[in-house]
């Protein structure tokens, strides 16, 4: 009835010419308000080759992928596909150009069957345009059988475990006749067996002459599968070299770019001995199991974990925001019960959320109201706010934190990411906390502002707060923590002091069960 043949992939069968690059990006730039996400990035994909794209969080990998997928539009640069200049303005354009992006966040319709999701970009139809469900079922079953993939095509997608959903997402790349396949951290939630299967699939794709862009920050995998590696850092192109010319160290050097120790000169003294936060046997219904740790006054406890390890879940559970199924949280000797944030903040524990926009800022409201939100009661007499005192207090923090804002009444959404984060830190300092949980404190923040946030966190601990920091960034973890706790799949897999910790130990613990198999691959 409303068929649109241009939606579907049949017209975009890969026309593979070995001499011409499948994809050529030149001088790609992308700016968001307050952040330059990509600047002058080049990338060339050859047909039949696996090109790895590496970089830390915030290096600009996801932005680049979203430009390829048509989710964002580039601000600068040119894009050529099989030698032709193209403009990609929407996901539909991207698909039509033969690009298939496998996203890290799973892009499947939960309510649909697995088989229907495989053919989401174009349901096969009969001559009358009716959907051929039998073809969808058998097509999916055949595809799965060919790649050795044991999932019931008729299962409801939303009922599958995340790792299997990820595999479905990957298998879609095969059903869709793409000439360029982009995979964004595809192994982040896969089991070792599935990782092996994924690599088989990738080899099958390259054998067909398809160009694969493999985005990852895991060294093992990249050495295993890639032909060429491009490294991005802070939105800039750093290097493109054949994998053979790289070593672990040279890759890390490219990704990190500077010696961690120099970046954050630690100012504060040693941690105190008073236990400010104690978590015993904490579990949640969906993610966390049996988490126990302590944080002392003046100490920074860094939690490291890969995507999906449960960092954010833990942060939200500790402060009383998300419900827990078992365990006890004690702040300064007093138990957090009943389990809600009103009690939590009353006891002196608060969260600096990873998602400033959704869980922190009130974008439409003036900056000073954002800063004073948690402590408004202190500026009130008989329920009436003493605006003079309130603004005076906020002004104090603006000066102390060097928050750059034209005025106190500036809408907070108009500030840069770094200044927004300072406002949110000020919100908690005005309230006076004993324990602050910070989740990815520098996400979406310019490099320059990052070190300022680091010194603020250092200062917080120096002032006697216990800081619990959730992070997926190694330099942040090693630069700030007194003690390091590693999470994998909702459990604590290692605890170590900063002095004893090495990057390798931490990564091994974070990869957990998956790591052992990827080592098998290497030997």
């Amino acid at each position, binding site marked *: 009835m409303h068929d649109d043949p241009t939606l579907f992939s049949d017209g975009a069968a890969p026309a593979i010419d070995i001499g011409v690059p499948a994809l050529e990006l030149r001088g790609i730039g992308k700016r968001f308000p307050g952040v330059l996400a990509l600047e002058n990035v080049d990338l060339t994909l050859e047909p039949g080759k696996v090109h790895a794209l590496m970089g830390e969080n915030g290096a600009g990998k996801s932005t680049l992928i979203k430009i390829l997928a048509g989710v964002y539009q580039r601000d600068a640069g040119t894009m050529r596909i099989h030698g032709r200049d193209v403009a990609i303005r929407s996901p539909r354009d991207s698909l039509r150009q033969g690009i298939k992006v496998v996203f890290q966040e799973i892009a499947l319709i939960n309510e649909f069957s697995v088989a229907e999701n495989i053919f989401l970009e174009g349901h096969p139809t009969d001559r009358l345009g009716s959907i051929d469900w039998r073809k969808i079922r058998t097509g999916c079953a055949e595809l799965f059988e060919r790649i050795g993939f044991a999932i019931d095509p008729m299962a409801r997608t939303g009922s599958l475990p995340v790792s299997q959903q990820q595999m479905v997402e990957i298998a879609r790349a095969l059903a869709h006749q793409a000439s360029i396949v982009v995979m964004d951290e595809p192994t982040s939630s896969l089991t070792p067996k599935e990782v092996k299967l994924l690599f088989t699939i990738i080899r099958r794709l390259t054998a067909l002459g398809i160009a694969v862009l493999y985005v990852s920050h895991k060294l093992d995998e990249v050495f295993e599968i890639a032909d060429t590696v491009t490294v991005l850092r802070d939105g800039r192109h750093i290097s493109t070299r054949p994998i053979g010319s790289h070593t672990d160290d040279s890759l890390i050097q490219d990704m990190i770019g500077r010696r961690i120790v120099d970046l954050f000169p630690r100012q504060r003294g040693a941690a105190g001995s008073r236990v400010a936060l104690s978590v015993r046997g904490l579990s949640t219904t969906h993610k966390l199991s049996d988490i126990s740790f302590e944080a002392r006054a003046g100490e920074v406890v860094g939690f490291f974990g890969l995507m999906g390890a449960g960092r954010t879940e833990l942060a939200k559970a500790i402060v009383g925001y998300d419900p827990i199924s078992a365990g006890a949280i004690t702040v300064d000797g007093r138990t957090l019960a009943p389990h809600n944030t009103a009690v939590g903040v009353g006891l002196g524990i608060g969260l600096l959320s990873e998602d400033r926009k959704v869980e922190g800022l009130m974008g439409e*409201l003036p900056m000073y109201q954002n800063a004073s939100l*948690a402590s408004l009661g202190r500026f009130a007499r008989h*329920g009436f706010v003493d605006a003079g005192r309130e603004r005076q207090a906020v002004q104090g923090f603006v000066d102390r934190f060097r928050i750059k804002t034209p005025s106190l009444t500036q809408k907070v959404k108009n*500030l840069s990411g770094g200044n927004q984060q300072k406002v949110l830190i000020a919100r908690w300092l005005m309230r006076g906390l004993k324990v602050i949980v910070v989740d990815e404190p520098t996400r979406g923040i310019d490099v320059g502002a990052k070190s300022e946030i680091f010194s603020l966190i250092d200062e917080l601990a120096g002032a006697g707060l216990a800081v619990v920091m959730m992070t997926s960034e190694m330099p942040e973890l090693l630069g700030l923590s007194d003690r390091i706790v590693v999470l994998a799949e909702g459990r604590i897999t290692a605890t170590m002091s900063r002095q004893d910790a090495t990057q390798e130990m931490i990564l091994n613990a974070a990869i957990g069960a998956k790591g052992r198999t990827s080592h098998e691959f290497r030997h």
Partner: protein
Amino acid sequence: MTEILRTGASGRTSFASLTGSGQLVLGVLLVALCLGISAAAPQFYSEANIIAILRQCALVLIVASGMTMLIIAAEVDLSVGASLAFVGCVGMAVLNATDSLALGLVSALAFAGAVGLVNGIVVTLLRVNSLIGTIGTMMMLQGGVYLFTREAVQNHHQLASFTALGAGYWGPLPIPVIFAVAIFALCAVTLRFTTIGRYLYAVGANERAVRLSGIRSARLKLAAFVVTGLCVGVAGLILASLMNAGQPTAGRGFELTVIAAVILGGTSLTGGSGSLFGTLLGVLVLKVIDNGIIILGWNQDLQMVVPGIIIILASYFDLLRSRHHA
């Protein structure tokens, strides 16, 4: 960095000019309407007509004061029209049964407050979208009022004090206007100067941030629903007094007029911004238009069309305003 700051600063001025100009436009519109209507029909400026307009405004403004708080907190109550009718019937029935003004007033207010409480519980505890949830309570009230009484509940005792509620004067001012001014002032002061007011804006702007800051947002919303309910209680009593009866059919479409006035006054349906002063202007504009329709001898059914169109237009402008600053 300086560049960011500069765009930010210009964003601020343009916003200030926009909200400011929004109310300015509304003010100019109001003046133009008054001039235009009085040019066509001089009796517009008669004392009787002005008092009639003020009385009409009073009913809407009383409920709109509560509704503004609710919409600022990013919720809405569509059951106010149905509740208005029910409240009048309940108040009148109790008055008839007990011959006591106090009991009549208290029971009507208690009923209206309870309706607000139920709405609040449906929205905060059961987490039903307030637009849908209050449509549900609206239907229950509409059906319920007919089960309660088939026809109008007549005023049996004709207590002078009850009649005064709607028709009386205090000096030159009708008593409903006094009530409206008092409730308006109370809500305006609450929104502007108290912690509760600030929290309402905060909840509307970002409820998660408010919860994470240790503030019990659900209670706050519940309170806003109850306050709106109580406002409906006052308005329902005044209406019953004016009609000298409890009318089960009264208040149809009332919710739309109220919401149209609030949105027209610049309060955003997405929450977190708006002001009661804007609502006051919105109420005046709508009611002057209504009055103009009558006084110019136009078809009164236009009174239904106008808020319908205005609510769509106003939400479109609201959307433009927020897009402009996204």
